[in-house]
C-alpha cells in the first residue's frame, strides 16, 4: 500500500460517518412521510376546529395518490358543507361548489389559505408540497420528546422549492420512525426564525406495517385559542387507487357517497 492510498483510505474512513449521517437524515424523513402517507392513502377523518368563539366538526374522506402526485378530498359532514370536494392533479387544484354546482380552479396563490376555516392550509390537505422533495434535511440531535427517544431534524427548503416555510423542525420516533412533532418556521429577518405553527402527532397504530399516527393536532402559534384536531377513523395504505377518483367527473358527483 502506497502512502498516498493509505492517506486516502484514512481520509475516507474519517469522512464516512459524516456522509452516513447526512444520508440518514433524508432516510428518516422518507420513513416518517411513508408512515403518514404510504404510497397511497385512503382515509376517513374527523376534523375538529376550535376557536375562542366557536367549535366546528367536519368529516371528510381523502384519497392521497403520492406516486402520481394527485389527491382528492370530499366533505361528508356537516350537511351545510356536504358535497364540497377538492381535486388536485399536480399543481392544478380544483374545488367543487355544490351550492352553485360549479367547479372552480383555485389559483396557486391560494394554496396557503385556510382550508374550510381550519388551521390546515389548502396545501396541507391537498398534499402538494412534500418534505422529501422540497426540503434538505439535517440531523441535529437525538433528545427524547415526552419520554420517547426521538431523532431531531432540521429541514431547510431547497433553493427552487415552491414552499413558504423558512425552516421546519421535526421530531421522529427513533424506534418506529413515526412522526411525533413538526414545527414550521418563518424568517421575518435574515437569521431570525419565528415559529408559526406546530403539528403534534399521537395515537400511533400499525397500518399495513407502517406506524401511522391517528391523531394530528395543528396549533397556529400566532392565534391564541385556535387549534384543529384531526382523528383518523379509517385508514388504508398502499392500496391501488382507481384513476376514476381523480377526475373532473368524480369532482361533480357532489352527492355521491364514496
Amino acid at each position, binding site marked *: 500500500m502506497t502512502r498516498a492510498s493509505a492517506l486516502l483510505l484514512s481520509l475516507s474512513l474519517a469522512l464516512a460517518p459524516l456522509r452516513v449521517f447526512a444520508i440518514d437524515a433524508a432516510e428518516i424523513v422518507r420513513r416518517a412521510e411513508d408512515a403518514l402517507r404510504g404510497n397511497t392513502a385512503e382515509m376517513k377523518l374527523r376534523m375538529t376546529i376550535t376557536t375562542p368563539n366557536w367549535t*366546528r366538526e367536519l368529516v371528510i374522506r381523502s384519497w392521497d395518490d403520492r406516486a402520481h402526485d394527485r389527491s382528492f378530498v370530499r366533505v361528508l359532514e356537516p350537511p351545510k358543507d356536504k358535497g364540497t370536494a377538492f381535486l388536485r392533479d399536480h399543481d392544478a387544484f380544483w374545488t367543487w*361548489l355544490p351550492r*352553485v354546482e360549479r367547479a372552480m380552479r383555485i*389559483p396557486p396563490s*391560494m394554496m396557503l389559505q385556510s382550508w374550510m*376555516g381550519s388551521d390546515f392550509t389548502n396545501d396541507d390537505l391537498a398534499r402538494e408540497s412534500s418534505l422529501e422533495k422540497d426540503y434538505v434535511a439535517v440531523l441535529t440531535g437525538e433528545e427524547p420528546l415526552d419520554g420517547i427517544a426521538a431523532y431531531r431534524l432540521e429541514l431547510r427548503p431547497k433553493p427552487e422549492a415552491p414552499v413558504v416555510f423558512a425552516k421546519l423542525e421535526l421530531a421522529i420516533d427513533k424506534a418506529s420512525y413515526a412522526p411525533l412533532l413538526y414545527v414550521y418556521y418563518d424568517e421575518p429577518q435574515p437569521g431570525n426564525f419565528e415559529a408559526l405553527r406546530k403539528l403534534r402527532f399521537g395515537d400511533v397504530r400499525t397500518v399495513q406495517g407502517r406506524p401511522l399516527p391517528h391523531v394530528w393536532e395543528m396549533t397556529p402559534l400566532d392565534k391564541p385559542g385556535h387549534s384543529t384536531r384531526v382523528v383518523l377513523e379509517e385508514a388504508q395504505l398502499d392500496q391501488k387507487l382507481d384513476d376514476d377518483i381523480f377526475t373532473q367527473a368524480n369532482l361533480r358527483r357532489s352527492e355521491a357517497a364514496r
Partner: protein
Amino acid sequence: MMLLRMAWRNLGRNKRRSALTIAAAVFATLLCVLNLAISAGSQKRWVANAVELYPGHFEVSARGYRDSHALDDALVLSPEQRAALDALPGAAGWAPRLEAFGLISADSERATGRGVQLFGIDAARERGLSRLVRSLRVGGAAPQRAAPGGRRQIALGDLLARNLGAKLGDDVIVVSADAFGSQAADRFRVVGTFHVAADELDGYGALVDLGELQEFLSAGERLSHAAVFARDTRALPAISVRLRQAFPADRYEVLSWPQLVPELVQFIEMGDVGDWFQNGLLLIVVAFGLLNTVLMSVFERVREFGVLRALGMRPRAVFGLVVLESLLLSLLGIALGFALGIPLVLYLEGHPIPLSADVGKAIEVFGLEPVIQFALSRSSLVALPLVLLGVGALASLLPAIRASRGRPVDALRAT
C-alpha cells in the same frame, strides 16, 4: 441706535437704488409664497383625493380586527354608538362597512378563481362620502339587497370585470369563508362596474350591499369598521376627541387618515423636501440679486465710507451700518411681498386655475380635478420670512466687509 438711524437715512438718500432692491426682495418673497401655496394646495388635494377614495378621515374598528381580519373580532355598533356617530360635530357623515376576502370566477365550466376583496357597503350613505359608489360607470347601478329568492347583486372593478370576462347582466361565482369558517358560495349578478383609478380596487374590488354580505357570510350585524368623513380638516381634532370617548381604547381602535394611508404621508414628506429644494434654488437667486445691489451701492459710496473712517468711525461700525441697511431693505421687501402675496393666495384658493385639456387629461387619470389648486400653508407664514431675512443678512456680509476695509486714502482718490 445711532447706526440704525444712519442706516435708515442712508436708504432715503438714494431712493431709486433702495426701491430697486426692495422690488427684488418683494418679487422673491412673492415667488416663494406662491410656490409654497401651490405645493400646499396640491398636497391638500392629494389628501382629499386619497381620503375620499374610500378610507375616510377616521376608521373605527374593534380591537384585534386589524390584525386578525376575522369576523369573530368584528365591530358591532350599539344604538348609543350609532347615535354618537350621527352626532359628531363637523362630520360630513359616517358609513358602516364589512370587508371580506374571497375568490371570484366567471359562471362557466372550469373557470379559474381570482382573489377578490368584497366591500359590503350602504350605497345611500356611501354616495355622499366616498368615491366608490360615485365612480360607477354609466349604465351600471349600485348593488342592492336582493329580494327574497332573487339573485344577489354585485358591482365589480372595471379591471376585475375585464379579467373575468364579465359584462353587465352576467353572473359571477363568489366564494368566501363565513363567520363559522364554513364555505359561503353563491351566484351574484353584475349590476355595475366602477373605475376609481386605483388598481387595488379596480382590479380586485367588488361592491355588495352591506346587508347582503352580512347575510351571505352569516355575519349578523358585524362590521369591519365604521368610516367617518369630516366636512373640513379643521374639524378633525374635535371629531377625534368625540370618537375616542364613544369608543374606548381598551375595546376599540380609532385610526386617523395618516395611519390609514401611510403611503400618502410618505409621499407628502417627500414632496416637502422637494419644495424646500426648489425654494432653496429660488433663494440662491434672490441672494445674488441682493448681493449685487448692495455691493454696487458700496462701490458707489467709497468716498462716503472713507469720510466716515476719517471722522473716526470704527471699521466694525461701518460693517454694521451696511448690514443694517441691507436688513432694513429685506425687511421692507418681505413685508410688502407678504402684503401682496397672501391676499393673492387667498383669492386663488377660491379660484383654482384650470389646466389646458392635455395636461388636464393626464391628471384626470389619477382621479383628480384638472386645476392648479392653491392653499395657504403654515410653513410659508412662519418659516419663510425668517429664512428670507437670513438670506438678506447673508447677502450683505461681503459688501459690508468690503466697506469696513475702505481706507480714507482710497476715498481721497475716489470721485
